[in-house]
Structures are given as C-alpha cells and as structure tokens.
C-alpha cells in the first residue's frame, strides 16, 4: 500500500519565477525507510515540506499537481490534520523546541490539538525516543543529541505514520548519531512508521535505509533499493554525493581491472568482508619519522581548571588541572564527544574565558593579564557558527574590520587578496548570513586569518555542510597549510582528521586521554571504544581484513591490499 502518492507536482516559491520542484511523480510504500539525497539547493527540503502541508498552506506559491498523504489530498486538508499524518524534524531542530521543559515540549502539539491524553502521548513519545526519565528536565540540560531526540519526540507524540527528518545527524558526534538512527530503525521496524530522511552520510544510508531517492535540479532522477542506488558510484559522484568508502574502493578496483564486473559492489563493511576476502595486506614501507627534536612550544596549558556556573546545584567542572603543550608549526586535530570541552579549550586560548586556576602561556607569556584584543594578532578563533562572526553588513567589511581598526596600511589590498584567495570576490557586497553554508565557512576562514595570526583555531569547520562542501573546505584547509603556521581544529569529522592532522589530541570528560599520530590513536582499540570516536569506514574495512592494517583513505587501502 502506498502511503504517499505524488502526481505531477510542480512548485515555485512566491516571487520566484523558476520552479524549485519540477513535475514530481512518486509513490512511497507504507513502512519504507527512504533516504533523499541530492546536491545543495536541489529542492530536498522543499519537497519534504509539501508532504506535511506547510506547502502550500503556510508557505504559498505556485502549486500544481497533487500530493496524497495516507489517503488525504494535501490541498484539501489543513496543516493540523496533516501534522497528525506526517511529523517533521528540522535541520536546525533547536529552533523547533518552544517549551522550557522536556515533557511539556513533547506533549505541546497534542495539547494544542485538544487531545485529552496529551500527557500520556508525550510520555509515550519520549520513551519511544529513549528519553525516559528526562521528563522534568529543562531544555538546556540536554545535550545536542538529546535535543534532537526531543524534537523527534515532539513529532512522534501526534502518532503520525510518516516521519520526515532533515539531516538528522549533521551536528552530532558518532555515538549520538548512532542513537538517533537506532531510534529511527525501531520506529520503522517495530512501530511500522514510514521514515524519510534527507541524508548525506552514505554509510548511514547503507546501514539503515531501504530505498534511496536521488533528486537533481528539482526533479527525481530515480528511486531505487539502497544497495542498487549506492552502487551507482559514477552517477552519485557526479552529483557530489560520496558513496560509502567500501563501495568506492571496490569501484576503483573494478576500473583498474582488479575486480570482476560480474560481482556486485559491496556497500557495507560486512559485505566487504566477503568481497575483499582474497586480498592480502602489505605492510607499507616504514616512512621515516620526523626527528623529534626539541620543538618550541607556542601554547602551554599549566594545570588549568575551569568550571561553568550552573542554574542549580554544583558548578559544572570542565577542566580539572589540564596540561597540554602545542608546538610551533603543528597541525592538530582536537577530538572528543559533544561536551568534552573542545570549544572551552579554544576559548581559553584566545582569552575569551579566563581559567579559574592554573595558567596559559602564549609564546612564553601568561595570557592571564592580557586583553583578548591584544592577543588577536597572534591567535585567532573561527567559531562553529559562522553567523556569529558576521558583525558588519558585507563580508568585505567583515574581513577588513580587524585590519581597518588597527590602521594597517594596505588593508584594502589585503582584503581583496583574501577575497580572491577564498573565492569570494563576486560575493563581497553580500551579507554573510545570506550566503550558502560553504560560502559562509569560507568567509569566516578569511576573517579568521585576516590579521595573519601565528596560531589559528577552528571550531568544527565542516559541521552542517553537505559532503561536497565539506570536501571543498577540506581543500581550502589544505591550501591554507602554507600560510598558517600552527593550526588546531576541533571536529567530529574523522575523514578530516585522518587526511589533514599531524597530531591528534583526544579529550574526554575534560582530560586529555590520548595524544599522538593517527596510528597511535586509532590503533588503540580501548581509546576508540571508550571515547566514542569513529575512524572512517575504510579503516574498519582494513581492520576487518587484517588486524594490523591501518589505512585511513581509499588510496591507502588500495595500495596496501593487493591480490597477492
């Protein structure tokens, strides 16, 4: 039985002549777990909003064709009725939460639709989303992943048959991401919900989804079973979607003639185990380790302790006597789960937070007595949320600001140089907030290095980006290696860590639990498991074939695993 039927849907936003959805025809079966993929701006989110009636009832525009959800034509019913059929979780889910306490928010919609049993429905939704026991907590006591689960619970409480999620795991660390998907799987399998996710992480699609739908320029290119869809490596890559690394590896072997065309490409590590069974691991030639001479420390944390005031009860201790040394010229990745203290560490370095105890030395001088403003020539921080870095009304003015107020002679030329370097010259008069995700990131990087700081700190530079943009930012970061001396990146993105970092520092509950090269970190099972970090999929593939194998990229995998 089809729960969603769409016929000849064409839609354009008000005041826009070009249709964003073009002639869409689709059937979704009840109980499906469908992933919607496609480039940025191809109409994925718009498409999903037609399913719950926001389009055309709340957002008007030119709407042609028909959308039928569980037997109801969306044109003929109102948003309220449709909300009980299809629940929606936004990408910026924290803005979707309107009530101060957990149970309140989960049951809010039911209360508004005058359902007598709204509290029970809220409770039921919370338990389905594994948030039992948190009913009376306040919103700000939840972690990012829990907040997302709450947004989901708010939608589940109306008991809709369809749940739509817009990039559910873009901001989450791997363990939280797993939790979200496990909840979704349970809702799908045990409770028979139809689930539609907009998702870029193909490894998750391979593990959890049943069908994949590719959108291109506002129309549906195809809808296929997941395996089949992910094997279309060339087509996906041409749309800037990156199939699972295992699939890409097999596909490249196929091109090199090392993999017979009759065999199907694997999409998960499990499948890879049988397909790659015959491959042998060859130890790479031990490359010379750079001589560990005495390197000059640029930042030193000496017994630093800091705690945040909390609303109730004891202060929350973030660091308790933390010690860390950062040397000139290092490229460091700072990893650890949400809330491990990564952002705090960075804010301490630029002097935005003062340590409660202990001291931080920058170039041998304590920064305790220094003003943040005077540190900015030496060290600079780029926020996770680029919007908060835009303080002027155009990105040109934003990039120039720090240089302008310091009366740097050729600040105009340097601004133009930076605009050109980050490919922003054409956008220079636009407000930063109105740019796309990738453009915003590039602008924030340009702002960050405007004063040519010796140390650059980047907080989650690739979060919330689709994979194509992520690759682009990764390229930019690699290009920047020459102009910036010491760089530290806080991130969950293990591909970025593996391809970019020379040293990895692992934070867990305010302590440095591991510090070293990628082999030293990912080679240690205990750390990977306790801290909840996750190496790239290809690393697992290598490990599954040979315990000694440490490969982080598809290239390395192909180089080291040979037929003989």
């Amino acid at each position: 039985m089809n729960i969603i039927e769409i016929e000849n849907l064409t839609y354009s936003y008000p005041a826009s002549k070009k249709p964003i959805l073009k002639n869409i025809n689709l059937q979704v079966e009840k109980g499906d777990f469908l992933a919607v993929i496609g480039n940025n701006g191809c109409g994925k989110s718009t498409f999903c909003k037609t399913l719950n009636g926001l389009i055309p009832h709340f957002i008007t525009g030119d709407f042609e064709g028909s959308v039928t959800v569980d037997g109801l034509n969306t044109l003929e019913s109102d948003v309220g009725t449709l909300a009980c059929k299809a629940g929606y979780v936004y990408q910026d889910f924290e803005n979707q939460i309107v009530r101060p306490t957990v149970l309140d928010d989960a049951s809010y919609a039911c209360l508004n639709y005058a359902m007598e049993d709204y509290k029970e429905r809220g409770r039921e939704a919370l338990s389905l989303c594994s948030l039992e026991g948190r009913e009376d907590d306040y919103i700000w006591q939840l972690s990012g992943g829990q907040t997302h689960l709450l947004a989901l619970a708010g939608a589940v409480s109306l008991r809709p048959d369809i749940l739509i999620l817009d990039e559910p795991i873009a901001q989450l660390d791997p363990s939280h991401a797993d939790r979200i998907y496990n909840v979704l799987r349970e809702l799908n399998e045990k409770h028979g919900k139809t689930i539609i996710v907009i998702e870029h992480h193909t490894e998750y699609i391979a593990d959890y989804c049943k069908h994949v739908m590719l959108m291109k320029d506002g129309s549906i290119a195809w809808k296929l079973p997941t395996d089949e869809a992910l094997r279309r490596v060339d087509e996906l890559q041409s749309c800037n979607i990156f199939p699972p690394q295992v699939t890409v590896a097999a596909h490249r072997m196929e091109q090199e003639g090392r993999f017979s065309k009759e065999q199907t490409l694997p999409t998960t590590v499990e499948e890879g185990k049988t397909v790659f069974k015959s491959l042998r691991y060859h130890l790479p030639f031990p490359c010379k380790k750079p001589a560990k001479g005495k390197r000059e420390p640029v930042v030193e944390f000496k017994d630093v302790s800091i705690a945040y005031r909390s609303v109730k009860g004891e202060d929350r201790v973030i660091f308790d006597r933390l010690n860390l040394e950062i040397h000139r010229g290092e490229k460091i990745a700072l990893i650890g789960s949400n809330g491990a203290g990564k952002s705090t560490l960075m804010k301490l370095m630029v002097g935005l937070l003062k340590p409660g105890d202990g001291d931080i030395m920058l170039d041998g001088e304590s920064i305790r007595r220094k003003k943040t403003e005077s540190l900015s020539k030496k060290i600079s921080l780029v926020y996770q949320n680029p919007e908060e870095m835009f303080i002027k009304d155009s990105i040109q003015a934003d990039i120039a600001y720090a240089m302008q107020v310091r009366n740097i002679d050729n600040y105009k030329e340097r601004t133009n140089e930076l605009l050109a370097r980050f490919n922003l010259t054409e956008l220079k008069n636009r407000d930063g907030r109105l740019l796309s995700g990738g453009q915003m990131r590039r602008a924030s990087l340009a702002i960050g290095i405007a004063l040519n700081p010796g140390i650059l700190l980047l907080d989650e530079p690739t979060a919330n980006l689709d994979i194509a943009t992520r690759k682009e930012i990764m390229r930019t970061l690699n290009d920047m290696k020459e102009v910036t001396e010491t760089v530290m990146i806080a991130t969950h993105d293990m591909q970025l860590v593996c391809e970019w970092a020379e040293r990895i520092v692992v934070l867990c509950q305010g302590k440095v639990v591991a510090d070293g090269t990628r082999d030293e970190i990912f080679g240690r099972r205990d750390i990977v498991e306790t801290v909840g970090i996750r190496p790239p999929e290809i690393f697992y593939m290598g490990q599954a074939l040979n315990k000694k194998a440490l490969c982080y990229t598809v290239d390395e995998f192909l180089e080291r695993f040979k037929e003989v």
Partner: protein
Amino acid sequence: MKMKKKLSENILDKFSIDFLRTQVLKNAYGNDDTVIAALDPRILIVWYLFMGLVPWFVNNLWFLMACFILVLVTTKLARVAGLVLLLFVIGVFTQTGYLLVVSLFFGGNASTVVSLLILTLKVATCSLASITVFSGLDPDRLSNGLMWYGCPERLSFSISYAYRVLPMLMGEFQNILLSFRMRGNPPEHETFAGKVKYLFYQVKVIMHAFYPLMLNTAKRSRTTVEALEIKGYRYAAVNKAVKKMKFSTLKVTYNDLLFLAVSFLWISLSVLASTLA
C-alpha cells in the same frame, strides 16, 4: 580611582553575559521547588494585587511595616536570584532611599524621616511582592494563572516563550560581543581619558552588536514560526477545549489557603496593633 578602574572593566569582563544568562535562568527556573513555587498561581496573583496596590493608599506605619516584613519573608522563601535582589536594592535606594539617608544625617526632623520611611516602605513592599510572584513562580504557571483571569493567550505564550529563547539569545549576543573583542581594537585605557574613551567604546560595541543579533534571530525564527504552525499553536488559540485542559492543571490546595490565612492574620494583627497604639 580603583572604583573607576573596576567600573570601566566591568561592563564586558566581570559582568559577563554568561553571568546574566545564568542569573536569568536561575530566576525563572532555579527555584521551582520552593514553597512559593508550589502555590496556585491564581491565589498568588490575588495576593500580589493586594500587596502591590493597597500599600499605596495606606499611610499607617504599622501596617506598612507588617506588609514589608511579610513580603521580605516571602522573598526569602522564593529564593530569589542574587542579581534581582541587587537590582532591587539599587532601585529602591535611588528612588527614595537616598533621601531617607540624607535627611537622617543632615538633621531632618522626625516627621520628614517618617514620611520618607513610609514612601520607601511602599516602594519596597510593592517591588518585593512583584519579585516574589514573578520570579518565585515559574513562567509557565504564571502565564496559566494570567490566562485564567482572562489575559489573552498570546500574552501568556509570549511570557513562557521569552524565557525559552532568552538564554539562546543571550548566548548568541555573547558570541557576537566576543567577535568584536577578538577583532576590535579598543582605545588604550591606562589614563583617565583613555578609560572614559574605553567606556564609550564598550557601549558603542554593545549597540553595534544588536544589528547582527537581530538578523541572526530573524533567521532562526523562520523555523520556529513553521514549527509553531505544525504544532497547532494557531488552533489552540481559538479552541476553548484546550484552555480548559490547561486550567485543569491548576488546583487550589490546603497550602494555598494556609498561605492566604497566614498573610491575612498577620496583616490583621498589624491593623489591630495600630489601633491599640
């Protein structure tokens, strides 16, 4: 000199937005387990109307004293956040309190002192009563209470929503201010003139920070508005059944009556005392 130095540093450093944020949260939700918070909001609102209005029309020192002591006790019971109390003290002092002190020291006669004391007591009682009710009750209960008395749904929703977004807004505002700090170049502030300049600079930065804050908020609220529509906010506003369900959570208990009785007894005692005196 030291004081001045502190003042100029304070705006952005010590008195951080982060501090403000926790104080606001503490004020709204940090005391939901107190005696006052457990009371029925409707009862408290009636009580507040009495405490907030009646003292203005009475000039009896005994009566005012009694009211003041009563609200002092309730404020204590409500465990009000420190910042609010500080603001209260500053507020009362700058309104009338300083006159009282001045007249005490510069030979004001008894009658001026008494009349000033009466005025101060009125202001203080009224403000403390407001503090008790508005920060002792959590915003949700308060807005339900107001709605029961016929305040429009929008007002009561705004109150509780404001408390929901305020922490978020303050976090954002703080980050924008930090952006200014990281990239700005404040004037030197070693000399006195420099300090004055620095103070102006800080005020200017705070003003400039509002523009990005507004734009960022506008961007966020797009999702919120859609989410409210999905969650049926508009339907609830016109549906009587929803109102009824909301009110069913309000209940007058034994404690509420006890609270009213004790207040009443105390005030009557004071009236009695004043007639006897």
